[in-house]
Structures are given as structure tokens and as C-alpha cells.
């Protein structure tokens, strides 16, 4: 946004067909149709592109959950600004409107993906089984809410179109684990494309979550999942907490706003999602005492843990007490209040319109902005983060070189930046370590470098 020169995305290290279970579909998949004209990297380290038929923003790599919220908000503002600029060029009777949601209510879904850096040493089967328990049950505080159902339902009959459900996305999961992201979607996606040193790391590519309008919901979604993944890495997740039929359970949880639905566990117990969450929180509390939460940022980790405890306890007492945090509760409150005020049937299209408009990116139309949701980020920090990278990851290097030498960078992707050096040709700087390239490590170097040639000479073998 800060300069007019767009730097293209470099596809050389992209392998979305690699499967964490140990094989690759790259040889069998059709190439993904993406136009490179609309695929770019921003000075805040983010990637901004067209995915199938809609704009998509990937935040830069962040060190903790609060940074993710900040850069997710920055992404919203970038998209909002794009929408405004695009509309200025359209005839007055046309308008492009963007929505930050996950379903059109007609059986079409599009994801809000999370990505987590995890150790390659942890067996993938263990990660998949244990994180599934969290994905199924975390919906109760990070579901974005939806009017209607887009699945035949638990009984096989056409499901109730009047249903208000907790999650936007739950209707679309058909498998426990798999590589697909657009058909027969799995709860745990096995795409094995770490975008960093593959001998040391995995990137868990999560497709099971909703796009949240509530900043605190995003914070809890990412923060609790980071803690749970840390527990799994340290073999501290309760081994007995395994759901018998996760695909069924995802919908059971989503379709029950009373939070009373019981899920069958492999050990024979029947637990509600809140009870499962309570057991995970208890284990996380013990984990924090025993191991500390440095892996997710100690201060943020402890704050997440406290809020996690509160939101799950409050949901069990009275969901309305978290209408300022939890999207589905905020949305349900508006829909029920509106229906009551106007004496509407549950099938009235105005209620579905409220559902959709909750996610409208136009400030003058967005209902989430009017719902009384708590915020975490200061507006000036969001504005700053639209053009400046986080300081705590390699995104700092990527964003800063783009800002300083936009015409010398010919391409960039997650794990490298390519410079065009006069008389020397293209020079690729690899970035295999996501937690290097930070301000602390390369800030001074970038400051004293006169130009890319100078920078490359000073970098030596990289960082």
C-alpha cells in the first residue's frame, strides 16, 4: 500500500499437494488457476491475492496470538480500502461488496485458514487425533454463527432451515483427515508445505475454523490452539480425551446452541463440548505450571489461558454474558431481538440478511461493528500494521526490504526474497527459519545497508 510497485509472488517453493502422511499429490493435481497479476506481497509482510473467485489476505508470520489479531485487522482494512478504490472505478449503479464470512447459505463455503509452526518431531497421527478434540469443541467460543443449515443433518433428513447454528463451517466437514480443501473437506488437513526448513518444522494448515468478526474470538481461537499444539508437542495433552466420531460431533456441537449436546468419547464417557473444553483448560493450566508458556509468548499465553477459562465458564452459566466476545452469541442476540421486535417467523429472509450483513465489510453496513464487541487493537496500531511488518518474525525482513528497495525486489514468498542485482542477475535470499530475520537480528543491518548489494554482502551466508 505504501508504494505503487507491486512485487509478485514467487511460486517456486509452493507444494500444496504434499501430504503430511508421507506422499505427494503434486503429480496428479491440476495446476491451481490463479492469475499472478493479482497475487502480490505487501510491505507489512502479508500476501494479498485472488483465491478462486474472491480476494484473500494471508497475514504475515506472527509470534503470538495478539499479533495475529492485529494483522488480521490490518488485513480487513486493506480489503476494505481495496473495495472502496475498486468501487470508485465502477458505474454508479454497480457496487462490489465484500463479506468476511465462510458460507453463502447455499452450500458454497470458503475458509478462514490458520497456520501454526510445529515441530517435525511430533508424530502427525498424534497431532491429528489430539487437535481434533480441540477443533470440535472450541466452536463454542469461536463459532461465527449461521442462520440455516447446509447439510442433510445428523439424522440424514434435510436439516432444519430455521436452525441457528454455532459455526459457519461445520456443515462442510465430511472426513476426519485428508488433503482436500474444497471437496469432502477434512477436519484435519494434511497439506505438508512448511514454507521453512522441512527437516525441523511442520506447518499445521487449519481449515476447520470460522472467520471471526470479534477480535477477542480470533485471539481465543488462535491463542488456545497454539497452547494446545504446544501441549501436544510436549506430550502433555490428555491422552484419553479422544472423540469417537469427530465428523458427527462437529455438527452436533454446531447445531446445539443450548450447549447440552453430548459427544461420545472413545473411553465411553459422554461429554458436552464445554466439559471437553474444561478438561483441556485444566490440562493447559497444569502444562503452564510445569512447562511455562514461553513457546506461545508467556505473557500472551497466560492472558489467553485466563480468558479461555472465563469464556467457557460463562458460556455454561449464561451465553449472553459473552455476547461482547463470542460472535455466534452476538449474532443470535441480534437476530432473536429483531425477530421479536417485528414479530417475524424464523423463516423470514430478514433474519438471514442479518446473518450475512453481520460480516459486511462496509463500515456503514457492517452489523458486527454495531454489536457491542470488545476490541483489542488500537486503531492507530491497525493503520500502522497495514504497511509495517511485525518485528518478531522473518516477515520483518520481507516487509522492510520491500519498503526500502521496492524496485530491486523482483519476487518474494514465505521463505525467500529475490533481488535483481545490476550486472549480477537474480539473487535469492533464503529464509528457512521463521523466527529469524527479526528486527532484533537484522534491524541494524537493514538500517546501515545502502542498497541490496551492500545488504547481501553484509548478510554473508544469510540468517
Amino acid at each position, binding site marked *: 500500500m505504501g508504494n505503487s510497485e507491486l512485487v509478485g509472488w514467487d511460486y517456486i517453493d509452493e507444494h500444496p499437494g504434499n501430504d503430511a502422511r508421507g506422499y505427494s499429490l503434486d503429480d496428479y493435481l491440476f495446476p491451481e488457476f490463479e492469475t499472478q497479476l493479482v497475487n502480490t506481497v505487501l510491505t507489512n509482510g502479508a500476501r494479498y491475492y485472488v483465491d*478462486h*473467485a*474472491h480476494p484473500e489476505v494471508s497475514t504475515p508470520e506472527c*509470534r*503470538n496470538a*495478539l*499479533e495475529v489479531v*492485529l494483522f488480521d485487522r490490518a488485513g480487513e482494512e486493506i480489503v476494505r480500502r481495496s473495495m472502496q478504490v475498486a468501487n470508485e472505478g465502477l458505474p454508479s449503479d454497480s457496487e462490489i461488496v465484500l463479506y468476511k464470512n465462510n458460507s*453463502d*447459505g*447455499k452450500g*458454497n*463455503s*470458503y*475458509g478462514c*485458514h490458520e497456520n501454526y509452526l510445529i515441530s517435525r518431531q511430533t508424530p502427525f497421527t498424534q497431532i491429528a487425533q489430539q487437535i481434533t478434540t480441540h477443533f470440535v469443541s472450541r466452536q463454542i467460543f469461536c463459532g461465527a454463527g449461521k442462520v440455516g443449515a447446509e447439510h442433510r443433518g445428523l439424522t440424514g433428513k434435510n436439516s432444519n432451515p430455521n436452525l441457528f447454528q454455532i459455526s459457519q463451517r461445520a456443515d462442510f466437514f465430511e472426513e476426519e483427515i485428508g488433503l482436500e*480443501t*474444497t471437496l469432502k473437506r477434512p477436519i484435519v488437513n494434511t497439506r505438508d508445505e512448511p514454507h521453512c526448513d522441512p527437516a525441523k518444522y511442520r506447518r499445521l494448515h487449519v481449515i476447520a475454523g470460522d472467520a471471526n468478526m470479534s477480535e*477477542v474470538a480470533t485471539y481465543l481461537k488462535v491463542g488456545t490452539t497454539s497452547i494446545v499444539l*504446544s501441549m501436544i508437542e*510436549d506430550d502433555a495433552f490428555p491422552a484419553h480425551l479422544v472423540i469417537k466420531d469427530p465428523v458427527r460431533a462437529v455438527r452436533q456441537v454446531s447445531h446445539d446452541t443450548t450447549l447440552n449436546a453430548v459427544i461420545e468419547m472413545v473411553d465411553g464417557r459422554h461429554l458436552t463440548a464445554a466439559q471437553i473444553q474444561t478438561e483441556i483448560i485444566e490440562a493447559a493450566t497444569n502444562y503452564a505450571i510445569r*512447562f*511455562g508458556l*514461553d*513457546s506461545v*509468548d*508467556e*505473557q*500472551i499465553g497466560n*492472558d489467553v489461558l*485466563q*480468558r479461555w477459562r*472465563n469464556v467457557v465458564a460463562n458460556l455454561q452459566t449464561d451465553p449472553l*454474558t*459473552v*455476547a*461482547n*466476545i463470542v460472535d455466534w452469541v452476538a449474532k443470535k*442476540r*441480534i437476530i432473536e*431481538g*429483531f425477530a421479536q421486535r417485528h414479530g417475524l417467523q424464523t423463516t*423470514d*429472509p*430478514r433474519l*438471514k*440478511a*442479518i446473518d*450475512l450483513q453481520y460480516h459486511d465489510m462496509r463500515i*456503514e*453496513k457492517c*452489523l458486527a461493528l*454495531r*454489536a*457491542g464487541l*470488545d476490541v*483489542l487493537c488500537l486503531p492507530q*496500531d491497525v493503520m500502522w500494521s497495514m504497511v509495517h511488518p511485525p*518485528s*518478531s518474525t522473518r516477515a520483518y525482513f520481507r516487509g522492510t526490504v520491500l519498503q526500502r528497495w521496492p524496485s530491486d525486489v523482483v519476487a518474494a514468498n514465505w521463505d525467500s526474497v529475490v533481488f535483481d542485482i545490476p550486472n549480477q542477475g537474480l539473487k535469492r535470499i533464503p529464509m528457512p527459519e521463521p523466527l529469524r530475520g527479526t528486527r532484533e537480528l537484522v534491524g541494524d543491518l537493514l538500517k546501515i545497508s545502502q542498497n541490496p548489494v551492500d545488504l547481501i554482502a553484509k548478510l554473508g551466508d544469510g540468517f
Partner: protein
Amino acid sequence: MAEQIKKSASSRKATESASRSDATANKDTKNITADLDSLLNEIDEVLESNAEEFVKSYVQKGGQ
């Protein structure tokens, strides 16, 4: 086990934003004060006028 603990400790890094989170930590425990009536008044004003047509024409093909 000791090695795993060391792994965590080596990635220790407090960030500037961490202190801000602390300052706002008590915010979401406040009572829900947003008045539903005034909220609904506002929604009456901004809700798409032809809801049926809007909902019907809202189609998004494709996506992960």
C-alpha cells in the same frame, strides 16, 4: 523432557504488544452494556431493504 522445556525457553520473546494485552485483560469481563433496543434501532436503519432479493442473490462460487 528437559530438552523440550529448553526448546520452549529458547524461543522466549516478550513483544511490545504483550503489555498492551495485559492492560486490556479485564475489558471483556465488563457487563454487556450495549443496549439491545438502540442496537435494533440502528439495525432497522442499515439492514438491506430488500432482504429477500439480497439473500437470494447472495452466491459465492468456489473457495477452499
